[in-house]
Every structure is written in structure tokens, then in C-alpha cells.
């Protein structure tokens, strides 16, 4: 860990986490910190519990033991939040958007805003249109139903809903899975530019090496039921663990790395 990281504010802190389904232990003694304003990519083989970790942090999957602290609050043991505390701590974008199928995209984005008391319906609608436009969807997409959208548009709409309340933390579950390379690259750029301009801390679960290269500030590798190692892409390349080595030195990883060096350098400046 570098000096710069130690100085930064921690927004999510996970300590001693244990998740278990029946006799199958998914996480054991898992520790992880996420700093303010960073994009953390979480990688791991299939079935290593990346999505379970995401669901545990946002409270959808109570762990056996361990603590999860988000913005200073112990989210596992806190009492019911008072009604007037409507500020969202996080937004979650699920794999296929998880939009409510009976509502239009605009209504989907308005759903979280309805919890705000005294918000004028006209303003709510205009703000929903703004969020839809911010994630790169055309204005007319707001009136469509999720079933009328392509997979990539549904993901964007899911992102717009996750951003509806301007949360400081954003969780993304496999944001580029199932997108074509062009759509995936656009989504990577979108996530990066939104997180920078809105000051978001992003927890990003992915399999996509290009996404890791293009968007993530730091990478956490889940293997052997815990976070094996965290660090930047360059640090990952030096890790000796066989799975990590295979992952970051495989043919796909090298291709992704070459592409980044050849193409993405101008966008970083």
C-alpha cells in the first residue's frame, strides 16, 4: 500500500467477513477497503463470490460474521433508518439493469426520487430526463419500456436509476457483460467520466480485462475465499500467485494491455 492510499478517506471498510451457503464457505476472513473517489475493480474466477460480496455490502445477503462499514455507519447492525434520512448512500446497477418492466425508463429513474418529500413532479421528470441523457441515452428512450430496449441501453437505463439520488458510492455488477466491444468501450468511458465528474466511488465487479485496464484505479483479486491482493494494474502483473499470474498474463490479458497502450493513451491525458 502506498503512502497516498493511506492518506485517503475510506468509504467502505470490510473486516473479517464470512459468507457461507450450507456447508460451502464462499468468503472467509475477507478484508477490503474502498477509498473515496476511486474505481475499484473486483475480479475472480467464476463462483468465487464477487457478486455475493457486492450483495453483502448493499445488505441483500447477510453474512455469517464480519463487519461492513459504509461512510462510517455499520450497515449490518444499524437500526432502521429514519424516514427523513432519504439521502441514498449508494446506487446499484444490476447485471441486466433490473429495471421495473411495467414502468417506462423515465418512470424507473423517477422511482428513487419519489422518496424525496416535496419534490415537484415536473422537476422530478426533468431531472430523470437529465439522468437519462447523462448516461448517453437519447431523450426519446425515456418513454420506452425496458423490453423495447437493447441490452446495452437497458444497462445504461439501470445506471441512470442507480444515479438518480446522486449517491456517493456506485456498485456495478458486470457492467460490460453481454455488450459488443464498441458498446463495452463506450460504457467503460461513460463510467470513468461519470465517476470523475460526479466524484463517485465505484465498486465494479467484472470479468472484462479491457474494463479493468480502461477504467479501474485499483484492482482487488478474490481467490481462496478472501481478497488475495489489491493494487494497480502494474502491481497485479508482478503478483506470483498462480491464478493471478494466469489471469493477468494470459493471452487475453496481454491483448487487452497492448490495446490500452496503443489506443487509450490519448484519452488518459
Amino acid at each position, binding site marked *: 500500500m502506498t503512502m497516498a492510499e493511506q492518506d485517503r478517506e475510506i468509504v467502505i471498510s470490510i473486516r473479517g467477513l464470512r459468507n457461507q451457503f450450507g456447508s460451502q464457505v464462499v468468503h472467509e476472513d475477507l478484508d477490503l477497503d474502498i477509498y473515496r473517489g476511486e474505481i475499484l475493480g473486483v475480479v475472480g474466477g467464476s463462483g468465487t463470490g464477487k457478486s455475493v460480496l457486492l450483495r453483502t455490502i448493499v445488505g441483500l445477503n447477510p453474512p455469517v460474521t464480519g463487519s461492513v462499514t459504509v461512510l462510517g455507519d455499520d450497515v449490518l447492525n444499524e437500526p432502521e433508518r429514519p424516514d427523513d434520512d*432519504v*439521502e441514498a448512500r449508494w446506487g446499484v446497477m444490476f447485471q441486466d439493469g433490473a429495471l421495473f*418492466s*411495467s414502468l417506462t425508463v423515465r418512470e424507473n429513474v423517477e422511482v428513487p*426520487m419519489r422518496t*424525496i*418529500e*416535496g*419534490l*415537484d413532479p415536473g*422537476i422530478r421528470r*426533468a*431531472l430523470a*430526463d*437529465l*439522468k*437519462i*441523457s*447523462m448516461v448517453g441515452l437519447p*431523450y*426519446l428512450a425515456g*418513454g420506452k419500456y*425496458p*423490453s423495447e430496449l437493447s441490452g446495452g441501453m437497458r444497462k445504461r437505463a439501470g445506471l441512470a436509476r442507480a*444515479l438518480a*439520488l*446522486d449517491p456517493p458510492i456506485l456498485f456495478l455488477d458486470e457492467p460490460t457483460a453481454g455488450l459488443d466491444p464498441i458498446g463495452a468501450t463506450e460504457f467503460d468511458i461513460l463510467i470513468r*467520466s*461519470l465517476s*470523475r*465528474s*460526479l*466524484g463517485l466511488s465505484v465498486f465494479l465487479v467484472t470479468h472484462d480485462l479491457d474494463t479493468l485496464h480502461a477504467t479501474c484505479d485499483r484492482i482487488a483479486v478474490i481467490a481462496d475465499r478472501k481478497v488475495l491482493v489489491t493494487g494497480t494494474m502494474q502491481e497485479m502483473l508482478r503478483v506470483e500467485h498462480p491464478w493471478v499470474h494466469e489471469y493477468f498474463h494470459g493471452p487475453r490479458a496481454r491483448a487487452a494491455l497492448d490495446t490500452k497502450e496503443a489506443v487509450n493513451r490519448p484519452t488518459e491525458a
Partner: protein
Amino acid sequence: MDNGLPDIEITPTETEVTVTLRGQFALPQVTELAARMQTLPVDRPVRIDLSGVTRFDTSAAWALTTLHTRIAAAGQGFEIVGAGEGPASLLKTVAEAMPDTTEATVPPLTLVDRLAQLGEAVAGSTRFVLALTGYFGLFLARLGRSIRHPGEFRFTALVHHCEEVGLKAVPIVSLMAFLIGVVLAFQGSTQLRQFGAEVFVVDLIAISILRELGILLTSIIVAGRSASAFTAAIGSMKMREEIDAMRSLGLDPATILFVPRILALVIMLPILGLIANIMGLLGGGIMAWIDLDISPAMFTTRLVNGTDVSHLMVGMVKAPVFALIIGVVGCHAGMQVKSNAESLGRMTSASVVTAIFAVIVADALFSIFFARIGI
């Protein structure tokens, strides 16, 4: 943290308006902020001071950007000072992302449009009926093929579906028919007693149950149970591309999925109808015994002597037709499911409604037919 109303100070001078914002500006405050920004005059330049702002989110940036657009449209200057790094980048992002709402004006519906909609609906219904006929033909063709090539026929699937649509429906069908018999006897006795014609309650029960109610109500229950089950099963296979996988493996979905299901219905619905008839007569007989003192022996004698067997035949002959209707509608609706879960739910409920409606229409046609030929 200060959760009160936003502190907005508007200082108009001769040459410009200065707006000073202090405190939090997020979603709960945006209604107030937007309303106050709306009151600003557009006849002189506006200066916004954000140096006292502690929280500034997208909604606040939206309110200021909207104001900017309004002021700029009036040809006046607009300036934001004291914005920190975060608010400044947010304002820039929002200004770039402001949706262009002018492109979306839906023209009102004209008379011609409405006429076109009506025509489309009529054509759609016709296509639907033709498609159902097509599925019926497909079923017959595949059934014929199965008879010529018995090796292709899925006997295990047929038995399984017979159990699902037939055996498992016996309790509900029996209970329903028994209660209908009870209701008929009870209602009939109160009316017929006025004329001293209580004994005709046996004819009433026998004819109405054997001819119409036994088989019709059984079909309605089976339509609710099995048409929906067919649609859901086939529809979820369609949704997950299992049907496409079958086709690509050279398997015919009609032979594998439709024939066993529809055939199971054709076999089991007459049996269920017969059970319903027996239970209906039993319920009616018991109620007649309790309420009208018509002994079981008398009920049986009256039933055998006074009711022609043609009534039973009229009822039973409808059963296979209803079974075909329910099966074809259920399978057809299943194949119409698209790749989303919403269409699965919509088609499932549509298949039940269509099946019940079609069964009742067919029953009415049968009634007219039998009345014409005098049975």
C-alpha cells in the same frame, strides 16, 4: 449538518442580479431553488456565488443550468463564481448532458389514425384465429406422423401430461361438480316446491349437469389449470431459447411439446367430465334427499326413467373439442412468448382468457347445433 431550507440571497442592483447560495443544495432543496430561480428577472446579467455551498448535487446543477438557458435566451450575461472543483465539473457535465426536449412532439391522433388502429385490430384478430387454425393443423399432422412412425412418439411424456392435466385435476373438478349439484338441487327445490313439482328437480339436475354444466365447468377449470401451465412451460422454454436449440438439433417442437400435451387433454377431459357428471348427480341427489325427502332409490329410478341417455352423449361429445381448443390455445400462446419475462406473464393470462372464452363460444355453437337437429 444544516437540514433546513436552502439559504438563497438575491441582491438585485441596477446593472446585475447577484444570487448568493449558502448551505446544502441537493434533491430535497431543488424545488425551492428552482422556484426562486424562476422569479429572477431576465433584463440584466446574473451572477451566482457558490462559495458558501457545502453540498451541491446534480439537481442543483440542473436548476442553475436551466436558469442559464433562460438568461442566455434573453441575451444577458450569466456567470458563476466561487464554485469548487466538484461543483464546477458537475455544472460542466450537466450543461453538456441537458436533454434536447424539443425533438419530441407526438402528433395528436387523427380520425384516419383511429380508423387505421381499428383496422389493424380487426386484421390482428383474424390473423390470430388463422394462426390457431394453423396450430390445430400442425397438431393433426404431427399426430398422424406419430401414428405412422410410432418410434417418434413420446409415450412417457403423454403419461406424464395425463397425470398433470387429468389425475391431479380430479379433486378440484369433483368438489366443484359436487357443489354445483348441491346448488342446483337447492335452487330447483325452492322454485319447484311452489308448484308441488318437487320431483322434477331430478330432471333439472340430470339434464343441466349431463348436457351442459358438468363438461362446461370442467373445461373452464381445466382451461385455467392447464392452458396456463402449457403456456408457462412452453413460453419459458421459448424465452431461454430451448425451442431454438431443439430445432437446431433437428427435433420438432410440435411433436415433442404439443402432441403429448394436447393428446393428454383430449384423453383426460372426457374422463374428467364423466367424473364431474357423477359427482354433480351425487351432490344433487344428496341435497334432494335432505331438502326434498327424495330418497336415493327414488332419485335413481327417476333418473334412469326420466333422463334420456342422449343428454349424456350431448355432453360428452363436446369434451374432446373443448380439449383441443384448450390445448391449441395454450401451446400457441406459449410460442408467442418473447425473450422477456413480462411477455411470459402476459401470454399466460391471455391464454387462460382466450381458452375460456373460446370454450364458451364453442359450447354456444354446440347448443344451437343440437337444437337444430333436435337432440
